[in-house]
């Protein structure tokens, strides 16, 4: 391969091959291969170690017994399981507030995507996308501060009080009395946090609609809304579903905002205006004061959360993959 030249090489030597460089390529290949494997290794090690460390809990209650148990009462032991550990109140809360968050964020995201792609003037499109992407960059502790001192007293609390006072308040789902820290408050705040990623995915798939199809619909005399409703939305449907799933994944794992807004109650009330708890919130709020056996319990909760989010994310990625990869700040 390498050419042996007796002459001094002319010009830049950095691109010139040499006999010594023969090992360069295989070494380079193995190095980058190793780096790529690190992703899989890290994921595997994290999963393995947390599962091993939470084994005492799973052995005591059984995997499904742990998931279905509805009492969480920690013991003080350093070496054995003396308390009772059931994940159900936290799973219930996590799922409930994620559903609320998605129910608020997805319609909003679809509206925003249609607006930025179809309605807004060309010069305004980029700034609008940037504004939504910037929302993704705001640290969640900052959103938590604003949630405590602005959104809960001035936004979620009035809405909750109003809904409870309407006939809707008769339904168990909207029953009062409205509490300030509740599934609804947490869900609304989390919807703000998942909005960017859902928007990024739907915007991208809507933008992938073939120009010819849109133009054909316009040429047939369709109005702008009809084009959106009958051409762009059906085309972007897989993206909408995938984006929603990604949003669910994020909502399940959101910590700071939920820890400060969900209320830390294991009552599992039916109403969305009651205080509750979530997996992430209980880990964050109780970790610092936990006994060793309670930390096993928190690790078991972490494994549960990991399984839930990974399942949702794999599903979401499989759906999104069919409609192409999504680029943009908010998509990562």
């Amino acid at each position: 391969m390498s050419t042996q030249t007796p002459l001094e090489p002319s010009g830049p030597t950095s691109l010139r091959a040499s006999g010594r460089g023969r090992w360069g390529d295989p070494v380079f290949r193995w190095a980058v291969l190793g780096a790529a494997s690190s992703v899989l290794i890290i994921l595997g090690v994290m999963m393995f170690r947390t599962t091993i460390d939470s084994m005492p809990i799973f052995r005591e209650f059984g995997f499904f017994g742990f998931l279905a148990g509805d009492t969480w009462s920690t013991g003080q032991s350093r070496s054995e399981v003396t308390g009772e550990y059931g994940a159900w109140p936290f799973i219930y809360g996590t799922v409930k507030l994620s559903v609320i968050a998605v129910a608020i964020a997805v319609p909003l995201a679809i509206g925003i995507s249609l607006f930025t792609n179809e309605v807004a003037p060309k010069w305004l499109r980029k700034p609008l996308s940037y504004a939504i992407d910037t929302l993704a960059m705001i640290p969640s502790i900052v959103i938590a501060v604003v949630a405590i001192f602005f959104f809960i007293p001035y936004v979620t609390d009035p809405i909750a009080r109003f809904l409870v006072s309407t006939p809707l308040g008769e339904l168990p789902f909207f029953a009062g009395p409205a509490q300030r820290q509740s599934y609804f408050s947490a869900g609304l705040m989390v919807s703000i946090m998942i909005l960017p990623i859902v928007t990024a995915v739907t915007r991208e798939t809507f933008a992938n609609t073939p120009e010819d199809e849109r133009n054909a619909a316009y040429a047939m005399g369709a109005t702008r809304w009809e084009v959106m409703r009958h051409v762009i939305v059906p085309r972007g449907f897989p993206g909408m579903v995938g984006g929603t799933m990604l949003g669910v994944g994020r909502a399940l794992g959101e910590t700071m905002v939920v820890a400060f807004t969900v209320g830390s109650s294991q009552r599992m009330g039916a109403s969305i205006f009651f205080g509750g708890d979530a997996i992430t919130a209980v880990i964050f709020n109780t970790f610092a004061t936990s006994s060793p056996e309670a930390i096993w319990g928190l690790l078991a909760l972490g494994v549960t959360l990991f399984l839930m989010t990974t399942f949702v994310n794999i599903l979401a990625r499989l759906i999104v993959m069919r409609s192409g990869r999504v680029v943009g700040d908010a998509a990562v």
Partner: protein
Amino acid sequence: MTTDTMPQTDAPLPPDGTRSLHELEGNARRRKRRSRVLTMVLLGAMIGGVTPLVIILWQIIANSGAAFGWEFLSQVEPLSYRETGGGYLHGMWGTVYTTGMAAIMTVPMGIAAAIYLTEYGGGRFAFFVRFFTDVMTGVPSIFVGLAVYAILVTQLRFGTFTGAVALSIIMLPIVVRTAEEMLYLVPPDLRNASLALGARRWQTTLKVVLPAAGPGVITGVMLAVARAAGETAPLVLTALGARTVVTAIQGGNGQADIGLLMTDGLRQPFAPGIERAWAGGLTLIMIVLALTIVARLINQRSQI
């Protein structure tokens, strides 16, 4: 507006079934109105999406005035949350230290993984790596914190290094993804030209492809750093927090972080501590947004 009916012609067609082109279709006006109304609904959604951002920025700026200032940036927090004055110097130091260490660990590895995916990645293994990188972006940060706690903190106790490992695991998929996207955009002609001149694969990659994708890759790295700097949840499990400036790489007694200090301040019912938490929010948002904006400016100057 809510019922979706088949288009119905209100005006009867002439007996011969023809209609002048000047004549509007019977329901055209209704369809147009409907389109206009729903466009307004979409505008409402857009406003609904931008409003939270405006509210958050406004609230942070409006409320951080009481504690923010030179003293806040240059002093350590007083021991009591009831005392006014003092600042988050230790938190800022901790955030920069931890995030910087995480970046040093992640960036070479992430870019190398991205190089594998673009330059050698056609096979099934690359598909798996790509897929699980995407999945890894969705792993909850608190789980990363728990895992690092179980793996490292139980051995080394709390500190900067353990916090940095947690942040680095959060950054890794972001760096890999964005770097891969950018490397993928480098035209194949550049690679072919370099290979045709006799350069080896690694020389081509490191000296031609990577510099060409440079600005984009740097953008991705900065976004990942911004994301990691704003993380708090994994740090409570790995860095724990500290009340003074900690310079040790792994002291065993924890490292401070702006987010952790804000959390502590918010949990106390005392106004001075809460005011400092607001000011900490402003600091954090300035760090993150500065990184994001610079990243975007670099990206705009990118040649590819």
